[in-house]
């Protein structure tokens, strides 16, 4: 069954669920994706009335993590009196993981949220396609069987689907939102119980075998175009601090300039804050205007927490994330010893 018909089928299901959720007044608004006007992009949308339900779409360009709009709750999703509206949120795997993890971190109250689960079939690596198309303008993007068709002014290119989806989607094991036994009623549509995932992180081996100098060179090469627009921080559902470490000035910890060392420190410290929290949705790489691909750092964060503490973020709300807990028997091979 080709990608095209899969998307159609997913789209039909999520529209039906959204329609009767709104009809039965179970939710006040639906948070989903709508068709983008610029090529290779979609636009999140807040649906408040039944007749707008047909604006909801699903294709392989729904890269935004919608859990971002719930933490901190934006005024548009609050009633005029200020209480939180009941929201139905279209959730692919990583959005479901983000919601459960944010519930563990007590950032949102899952009672007035309905998770409309869908089984995601991969998000296109739009930055890579844009870079390979180069300076030619893209008019229309469509999928047929197993390819992504890009139509432009006087050219038409085909990209193999499995090759050009996000690195994270290629190895993703959580296609639909992980069902959490205690919160039975909020999961509608696709969802699967998941205790843990097994992942050998083989895609990182090649990079990790390099010498520190080569790694440093690669990271400098990767982060150099950064213009500090913070789109990666604003798109990440786990970045909800009201005063980011970069903006603090009592004391000023790290520089905010586009000097290469400041850029690398910003991405290093932000990555450190995401250890055991990042849900590998790839939104930070999809939104970067300069096409910086942070997927490898995301993979490293997942590997680090999986191998050391056997934890994967956002699967269920029983286990505390590693950085909020401690354990006597953690291995400490990195400590300095006398021998």
């Amino acid at each position, binding site marked *: 069954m080709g990608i095209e018909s899969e998307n159609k089928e997913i789209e039909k299901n999520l529209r039906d669920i959204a329609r009767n959720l709104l009809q039965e007044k179970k939710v006040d608004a639906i948070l989903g994706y709508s068709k983008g006007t610029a090529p290779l992009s979609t636009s999140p949308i807040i649906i408040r009335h039944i007749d707008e339900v047909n604006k909801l779409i699903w294709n392989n360009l729904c890269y935004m993590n919608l859990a971002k709009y719930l933490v901190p709750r934006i005024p548009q999703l609050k009633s005029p009196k200020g209480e939180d509206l009941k929201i139905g949120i279209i959730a692919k795997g990583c959005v479901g993981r983000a919601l459960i993890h944010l519930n563990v971190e007590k950032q949102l109250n899952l009672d007035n949220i309905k998770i409309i689960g869908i089984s995601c079939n991969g998000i296109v690596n739009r930055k890579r396609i844009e870079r390979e198309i180069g300076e030619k303008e893209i008019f229309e993007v469509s999928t047929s069987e197993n390819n992504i068709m890009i139509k432009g002014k006087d050219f038409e290119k085909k990209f193999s689907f499995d090759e050009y989806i996000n690195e994270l989607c290629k190895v993703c094991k959580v296609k639909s939102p992980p069902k959490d036994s205690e919160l039975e009623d909020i999961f509608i549509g696709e969802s699967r119980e998941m205790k843990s995932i097994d992942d050998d992180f083989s895609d990182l081996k090649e990079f990790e075998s390099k010498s520190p100098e080569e790694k440093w060179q690669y990271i400098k090469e990767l982060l150099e175009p950064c213009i500090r627009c913070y789109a990666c921080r604003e798109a990440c559902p786990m970045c909800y601090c009201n005063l980011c470490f970069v903006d603090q*000035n*009592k*004391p*000023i910890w790290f520089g905010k300039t586009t000097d290469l060392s400041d850029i690398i420190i910003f991405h290093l410290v932000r990555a450190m804050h995401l250890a055991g929290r990042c849900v590998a949705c790839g939104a930070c790489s999809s939104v970067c205007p300069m096409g910086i691909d942070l997927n490898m750092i995301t993979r490293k964060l997942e590997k680090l927490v999986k191998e050391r503490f056997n934890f994967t973020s956002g699967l269920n709300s029983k286990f505390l994330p590693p950085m909020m807990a401690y354990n006597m028997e953690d291995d400490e091979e990195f400590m300095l010893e006398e021998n």
Partner: protein
Amino acid sequence: MHNPYIPLLTEIKDIVSENKVNDLKTLELVFKKEEDYKAFTYIPGQFAEISLIGKGECPIGIASSPTEEDSIKFTIKKMGSVTTAFHNCEVGDIVGIRGPCGNGWPIDEMKNKNIVVIGGGFAFSTLRSLIIYMLDNKYRNNYKDITVIYGNRDSGEVLYRNDLDKWKKRNDLNVILTIDQEEKGWKEKVGFVAPVLKDVSPSPENAIAVVCGPPIMIKTTIAVLEELNFKDEQILNSLEMRMKCGIGKCGRCNIGNKFVCIDGPVFSLAELKKLPNEY
């Protein structure tokens, strides 16, 4: 080619702690180079971007009046990182000063009118500059009678005690101090600025009201002034806004299409009503 971001260098001559809690200090600055003094001619109500180079820069209203020739005074409350650095300074430290910025009180328009000065909290510093300027014997007869209403949370917060005592002794102006709650040993009025203004009820004809203080006090005071049918052009107000460059270039202090740092900080209520309600 004059680089507008380079400050003139001054030295701290004297530091006076203004309140018991010691989070308000008045710094007296003297220019290191003599000719800088002439380059820095200002009128009351203007502010300056003073900076501890290495720590940062912040916009502070000039508390001294141009008639006090020898030095420039700033009253600084310990709030953020730069103001805390100012509070750790000693006499003799170097302070950069850029300005004067803003339009200041319209001293010419206020000629031969009676002036009602209403101040609250530590925002009284720009009003002190105006009062001392008006009381200077060169300019006193330009203005009719002056009433000063100065409100504070408690007696420990009152600024410029010796100036206030001097003004009380004079007969050509009427100073009314008030604090929010009753306190032992406090002989002056008690209550918020707005009710006190209602009892004083200055007459609105040929008068200008100058208001400066925290946002809630401004809102209540303007309401009372409108009750005493002061017209919108007669009510002047100095606004507080986040600023970085002070010369209308960094773009953050805008209300509508006006920049508070160059088109303000003094706005009449008439102008404020034309601007969008975004301050």
